[in-house]
């Protein structure tokens, strides 16, 4: 059973110009995507920079105004209600940001940063609040004395863990993680990813994992959606996407990921160039005249792929 449904979400930005500052054009950052979230599952959103994946995350949580479409949380429509007081949406959906440093207030102590969601959503006495903060710091593996320090006193990985502590303070159901590890070194990244998996198991969390790193997404997610120009190109289980990619864009993206083994790299390079050439050649068949991705059609219970125009030549 899905606890949250996103229907035909669109975020358009007007482009103003001319003498009267009229709307002359719109940028379709997110252009009609639908998703469903089940509890305890991780959903990956993958795409190249500028494809609208971050905007999607921000629109769902309410940091970006939704142009059309609906976000339905436990049966309640919560679209564009900044203070969505009628449902527990604000408490149950939290976010982790890419740049941990700039998402922590430099003038607040760690204690006050983590206390903020607690004060907003949980009615705890001062003593309970203090205990809760210590508990959260312990969960993310930070020492007790971190409470009275300021964000700048921590390393990048530690700051990201503080961001996670803040996000899980209210026992959320869904965490939207926007590139949570892309600024971190490999070994620190491993630590954060392990840890995110641990708390997922412990609290039955769902993730919306936004990343451009297909390796990380493969490690973390059950379901993956590939995004291009504001629309889904392909969406399915991890297995569907990695072992049975259908759309040319997905194939191209997968073939471009460097593999961590030097064996067979010549063959991979040839394959990559072949797919790239095919992509350039057949581009028109996969997108409509406005270069918009065509609508998704199901090819199995879990696997959806954007339609293609009738082929002029054979496939790969």
């Amino acid at each position, binding site marked *: 059973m899905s606890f949250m449904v996103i229907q035909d979400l669109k975020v358009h930005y007007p482009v103003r110009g001319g003498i009267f500052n009229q709307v002359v054009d719109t940028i379709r950052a997110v252009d009609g995507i639908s998703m469903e979230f089940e509890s305890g599952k991780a959903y990956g959103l993958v795409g*190249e*920079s500028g494809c609208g994946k971050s905007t999607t995350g921000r629109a769902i949580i309410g940091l970006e105004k939704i142009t059309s479409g609906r976000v339905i949380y436990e049966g309640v429509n919560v679209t564009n209600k900044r203070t969505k007081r009628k449902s527990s949406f604000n408490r149950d959906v939290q976010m982790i940001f890419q740049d941990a440093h700039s998402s922590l207030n430099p003038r607040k102590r760690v204690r006050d940063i983590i206390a903020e969601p607690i004060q907003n959503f949980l009615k705890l006495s001062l003593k309970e609040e203090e205990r809760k903060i210590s508990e959260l710091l312990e969960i993310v593996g930070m020492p007790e004395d971190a409470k009275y320090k300021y964000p700048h006193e921590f*390393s990048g990985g530690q700051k990201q863990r503080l961001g996670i502590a803040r996000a899980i303070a209210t026992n959320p159901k869904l965490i939207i993680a926007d590139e949570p590890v892309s600024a971190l*070194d*490999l*070994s620190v*990244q*491993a*630590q954060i*990813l*392990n840890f995110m*998996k641990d708390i997922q198991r412990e609290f039955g969390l769902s993730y919306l994992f936004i990343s*451009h790193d*297909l*390796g*990380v997404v*493969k*490690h*973390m997610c059950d379901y993956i959606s590939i995004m291009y120009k504001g629309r889904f190109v392909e969406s399915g289980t*991890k297995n569907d996407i990695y072992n049975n990619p259908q759309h040319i864009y997905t194939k*191209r*993206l997968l*073939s*471009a*990921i*460097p*593999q*961590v*083994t*030097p*064996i067979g*790299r010549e063959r*991979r*390079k040839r394959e*990559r*160039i072949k797919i*790239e050439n095919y992509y350039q050649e057949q581009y028109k068949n996969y997108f409509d005249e406005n270069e918009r991705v065509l609508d998704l059609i199901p090819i199995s219970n879990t696997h959806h792929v954007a339609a293609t125009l009738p082929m002029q030549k054979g496939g790969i």
Partner: protein
Amino acid sequence: MKSTGEILKIKDLHIGFKINDEFYDAVDGVSLTLKRNEILAIVGESGCGKSTLATSIIGLHDPNSTRVYGEILYRNQNLLTLGEDQLNEIRGPEIGMIFQDPLSSLNPLMRIGDQIEEGLIYHTKQNAEERKNRVQELLQQVGIQNPERVARQFPHQLSGGMRQRVIIAIAIACKPKILIADEPTTALDVTIQAQILDLLLTLQHETGAGIILITHDLGVVAEVADRVAVMYAGEIIEEAPVKELFLHPKHPYTRSLFHSIPQMSSSSERLNVIQGIVPSLINLPREGCRFASRIPWIKAEAHEKNPQIHEVASEHFVRCTCYKEFHFKKERNS
């Protein structure tokens, strides 16, 4: 055309930064050789000294706050002893550099064509007409579709991948014998990254240059490098041909890194975490094995007092003997 002459030799290089009136070595006794026609990758996490090493080769460090000694031998001369004028003779026609951030290393007020031409003005005797043609040729060579238009454009009008291509065009304009690429694809999307890496490989085939590729991405290394040097805390701790390193990594640090990559393990597995943090420059242990504090479960006797470099297989070098005793820590049941 594959010849294996050494073109660059670094011997016991130390680069120290001044902190509170004292020098601390960020690069601490590095020796390396670069051969013609090969791609040597230098990998390591942030702060290990890999970029410091690269920039010092063409003398880009600030002489007031750094202390550099050792030898960087290029054509029998030590680059460290050269003055600014002599270095300018080398930068460009002999050694080219590709920087990580394509936007901040391009001049925002100059047209692309003029920026590429700049090096040609200083280093060649070509006249304006020949230079113009060469610029067009270079832009074509790095895979830019309509070179005439791009040459007239400014950096902000180009996408990230295009800018990186321009940077490469500038670096190869004077046909350098050595290319130093400092994280050339880190800021780019995977599809663009693949194109840029292919481009580097093609250019190398054409010119036979030696390339030093600085990166933290082991995937990139596996795709393009011939030889790999792994750096940790200012030292090279392992060096081997690419296949040897990926198939038989020896040093605990290298092995730990490989086990931290999400791609290589199935998702049910936990990723390996290297215990502790990279020590800061001031707190670097200057004696004994520098990685020892991160693998405390390995007994102290396993490390050498004065870690030496051992050749464990042909052309495969490892620092310290602790690799013999190393095993991964058993996962605690939490």
